[in-house]
């Protein structure tokens, strides 16, 4: 039993991990075919893992309702909203659960698509747009050039914010009177700022991002190796060893 519980999963991880790595170097058809099938199995298994995520969310809200925790009414709301969506899904415009999804129009009642377009999408987008307000507030109150490093960061950010959109050119058009618009100034606010922006992205930004990427990749390789060789087992979870 202990073998099945502890050793067998580690053997599986080792065998499949080694094959997954080795396969990259073996072009022969048997290797390609085996790889294809293993990939297919992982794809389907991942799908079932999604159900696990759903289950944990459900059990959490059920627990809240059962314990009558503060705000448990909201958990009921979660189930009500889920129930309506699920009902629309199960109805599937008359096709029910086991047939493929029926095409639906936007202007059609009782479809998952309606729930998506008019409930899910606006809520999701609005949640993210809240951040614009928080950024504005932080810009005023907390983005401070406390250290030389933070100063470099802020200066680069300001250059990019003004250079990536035609903000300066727009201000120039509005506020600079005609007689001040020398060729030099015009090209400075239009072309030069844009070139500086592109250069910042293409040279220092690229260099640092590449440095980070190389470092992170080494870390990813090390983690993968730990998994394959059974040194890292945290992903297997606990529970009755």
């Amino acid at each position, binding site marked *: 039993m202990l073998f099945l519980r502890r050793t067998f999963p580690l053997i599986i991880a080792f065998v499949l991990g080694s094959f997954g790595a080795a396969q*990259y170097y073996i072009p022969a058809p048997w290797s*390609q075919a085996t*790889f*294809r099938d293993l*990939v*297919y199995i*992982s*794809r*389907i298994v*991942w*799908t079932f893992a*999604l159900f696990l995520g759903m289950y944990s969310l459900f059990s959490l809200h059920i627990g809240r309702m059962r314990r009558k925790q503060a705000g448990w009414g909201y958990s009921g709301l979660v189930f009500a909203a889920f129930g309506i969506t699920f009902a629309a899904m199960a109805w599937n415009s008359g096709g029910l659960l086991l047939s*493929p*999804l*029926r*095409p639906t129009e*936007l202007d059609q009642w009782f479809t998952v*698509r309606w729930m*998506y*377009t008019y409930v*899910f*999408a*606006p809520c*999701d*987008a609005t*949640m*993210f747009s809240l951040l*614009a*307000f928080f*950024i*504005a*507030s932080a*810009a*005023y*109150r*907390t*983005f*401070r*050039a406390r250290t030389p490093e933070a100063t470099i960061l*802020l200066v680069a950010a*300001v250059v990019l*914010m*003004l250079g*990536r*959109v*035609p*903000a300066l*050119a*727009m*201000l120039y058009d509005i506020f600079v009177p005609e007689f001040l618009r020398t060729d030099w100034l015009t090209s400075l606010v*239009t072309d030069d700022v*844009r070139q500086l922006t*592109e250069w910042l*992205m*293409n040279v220092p*930004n*690229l260099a640092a*991002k*590449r440095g980070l*990427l190389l470092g992170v990749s080494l870390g990813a390789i090390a983690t993968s190796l730990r998994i394959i060789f059974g040194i890292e087992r945290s992903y297997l979870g606990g529970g009755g060893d």
Partner: protein
Amino acid sequence: MIDRILNIDRRYIFAVIFVVVVWALMADRPIQVPISSPVQDVFDFMERVAQIDDHPPTILISFDYGPGSDAEVQPMALALLRHAFSKGVRVAGMCIWETAPGLAKAAFETVAPEFDKKYGDDYVFLGYKSGGIAVVLNMGQDFSLAFPADAYGNRTDTLATTARISRLADFDYVITLAAGNTIDQLWVAYGQDRYKINLGGGVTAVMAPDMFPFLQTGQLNGLIPGLAGAAEYEKLIEHPGEATAGMLAQSWTHIAIVLSIVFGNVAYFISRRRDREV
């Protein structure tokens, strides 16, 4: 005094931003959008794909974003579809994110009638597949195993757009519209490296700076970054849309934010110097 100005209730700042955005959206003023080279590269490659004559040119658009980045990425999707359809390029759409299919459907349904394109013959929507990396690898090895059917259960080998496709590499161009790291962790790493696809990207501005190393190596052959990139693409296909309409508000809001950063920092330094003197 300065401290009090710096410590105002954040709700006032929220109100200011709200007013700036609404005002700038309502002020309709034409704005010049200069084209940056990564955007031009996507456009040029699409033009090259359209020139292919030994088989019907077909591209794959992977919709890997959700409503949270609808405002940024959806205009790219519309512009790319308009470009492809206007040049007679066939399009297959798929999703790695489960939150994307509604947006993808909406994009196809908006653009296809404009060009009188028919489902199946000119475009196909393959729907969502879970599994991330495994989906890309599955498509690379055997397309029909990854997508035996489209989103509505029609077999992909019976639809004209996908009948010719047996592997990921059979697509002439793959464009991923990404709001997360699917573009580098999935498409660049697994799709481009293993199956040598031509890969272009449209990403949210958050992701854009991280993509530049891949642009230089050619692992990505072009990139549409954020709303500004979308506006550039709209200009290239000469069909201004939502992105172009948003650029004015975008610019004004940037100016407002930059001014508050500058003001906040100046005030901060003044108050810090004063504190030191005292």
